[in-house]
């Protein structure tokens, strides 16, 4: 059994096509593995035939774990929030529908920070997810459940969403691959909205080839999401083995800031690896990128405060007991249904959009966004890719940053600029480093960003670098993978 689960999704797919692997048997093996979840990573699992609306009659590709932010007909969909407890959507998100049509069964729905707001998964109303490398540490967020199931041998691959780093950061902290595609590459229809101008669906996988395969299934324009355009060409499997002739730009404006020495050491050795594979390392200027966090924590909460207005106890979700008028019902429902971080962001966003402050906050942040996108455009005139560490630290301890929201936000320092610019970025595991304060070594992610819609080029380079790095560490006790 564990031999079956040791296959990557691509290897399994090839074995199915060759008639050497029974797809239903393989999916059942994964259902068995998922049932052993001790990480609080799944909020719902298909035990077999539990959800007729999303049943796949003839599986032909590896089953997928889906972040609980994707509406799935007849299956509980909570977005990690109390306010959607018990909600079963009447329709299925396009991304999930595409998986089903490709023959990929849904293995389960994964835990997440409430409405995707968080970098540690501690903001889930259903309890924190544990990092499979060290159960006293966070898996990252907000797609922490999706990252933990892949790293922990509870799913062959998963999908998540990334608004400011929510795929890349947990992938880095769990030692797997996470790709945020170009904004518009994948439909957002049925993906519960957090910050609509930034949200993007993407794969969390064991390796770069699986990410390419999953992206090929998910991408495409959709008439139900007018901002989706798809990729110019469906990605093919990467096969590049060297980096000759490719230029990688290190943004000194970001990497000169303080971050964990262990992460820095892995980052620098990865740059050396790029050179040994024939790539060239240059310095690029992204003078406005360091203001990314400030701009992001205005724009994202502003959009969230508007998007989350729909949770009012009228059409779906929970309603609080109230003897007063409808306004009191709204206020109580939202006070009881939302957790602390969601309330904080709604307040921040409402403030940033309020009359008299709009120009100073929201208007100014949108202008910073223009400058950051321009910085990347200039950089890509000079280099093929921009590279940074994915996260300033390895996985931190549960509870370590919950008391200080700003410290938590700074986890997104390296990932937010790419989100604001709408460009694709991938995190691949690059090595292990000791956490600050000591302890067993933990995975470090290396982020590569490319111009908009250059996913194929990005995947090819990431694949070559992945082969060169040869990262093969796994959490203790995880034999598959």
């Amino acid at each position: 059994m564990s031999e079956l689960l040791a296959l990557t999704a691509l290897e399994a797919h090839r074995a199915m096509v060759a008639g050497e692997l029974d797809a239903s048997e393989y999916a059942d093996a994964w259902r068995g593995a998922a049932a052993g979840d001790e990480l609080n990573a799944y909020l719902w699992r298909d035990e077999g035939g539990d959800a007729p609306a999303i049943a796949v009659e003839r599986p032909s590709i590896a089953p997928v774990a889906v972040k609980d932010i994707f509406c799935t007909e007849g299956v509980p969909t909570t977005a990690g929030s109390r306010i959607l407890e018990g909600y079963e959507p009447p329709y299925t998100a396009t991304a999930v529908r595409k998986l089903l049509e490709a023959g990929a069964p849904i293995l389960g729905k994964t835990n997440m920070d409430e409405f995707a707001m968080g970098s540690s998964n501690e903001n889930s109303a259903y309890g924190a997810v544990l990092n499979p490398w060290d159960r006293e540490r966070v898996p990252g967020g907000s797609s922490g459940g999706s990252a933990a199931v892949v790293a922990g041998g509870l799913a062959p691959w998963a999908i998540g969403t990334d608004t400011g780093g929510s795929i890349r950061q947990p992938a880095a902290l769990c030692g797997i691959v996470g790709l945020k595609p170009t904004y518009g590459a994948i439909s957002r229809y049925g993906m519960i909205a957090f910050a609509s101008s930034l949200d993007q669906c993407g794969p969390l996988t064991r390796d770069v080839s699986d990410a390419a395969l999953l992206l090929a299934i998910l991408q495409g324009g959709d008439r139900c999401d007018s901002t989706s355009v798809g990729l110019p060409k469906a990605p093919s499997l990467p096969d590049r083995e060297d980096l000759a002739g490719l230029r990688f730009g290190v943004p000194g404006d970001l990497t000169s800031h303080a971050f964990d020495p262990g992460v820095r050491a892995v980052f620098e050795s990865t740059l050396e690896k790029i050179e040994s594979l024939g790539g060239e390392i240059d310095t690029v200027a992204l003078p406005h990128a360091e203001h990314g966090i400030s701009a992001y924590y205005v724009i994202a909460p502003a959009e969230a405060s508007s998007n989350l207005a729909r949770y009012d106890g009228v059409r779906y979700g929970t309603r609080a007991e109230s003897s007063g008028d409808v306004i009191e019902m709204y206020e109580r429902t939202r006070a009881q249904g939302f957790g602390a971080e969601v309330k904080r962001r709604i307040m921040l966003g409402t403030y940033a959009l309020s009359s008299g402050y709009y120009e100073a906050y929201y208007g100014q942040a949108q202008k910073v966004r223009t400058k950051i996108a321009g910085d990347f455009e200039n950089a890509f005139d000079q280099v093929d890719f921009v590279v940074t560490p994915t996260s300033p630290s390895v996985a931190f301890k549960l509870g370590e940053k919950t008391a200080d929201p700003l410290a938590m936000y700074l986890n997104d320092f390296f990932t937010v600029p790419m989100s604001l610019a709408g460009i694709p970025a991938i995190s691949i595991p690059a090595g292990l480093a000791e956490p600050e304060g000591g302890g067993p070594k933990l995975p470090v992610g290396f982020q590569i960003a490319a111009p908009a819609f250059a996913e194929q080029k990005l995947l090819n380079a990431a694949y070559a670098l992945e082969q060169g790095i040869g990262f093969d560490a796994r959490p203790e006790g995880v034999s598959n993978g």
Partner: protein
Amino acid sequence: MAKLARLGLSEEEVERMAGELSGILEHVDRIAELDLDEVEPTSHVVELENVLRADAPHQSLPPEVALASAPDPADGAFRVPSPQAEE
């Protein structure tokens, strides 16, 4: 602000959040110092033409399905408490 956002926060929450929000706003305020008067704001990063479709009727959710998740459906509609509280 909580009133505007229809969030019934407790005294204690208001107090804690006031401190947290001023810390965050202090960080955010760094962008106030940048001279961006001539810069166009970005609301959407990918250049897109408006997408239109034919104005033709198509299948939508049947009312009973749309109401299935409502906390208090009644007579084919969503029922809410009166806008005016009873005395």
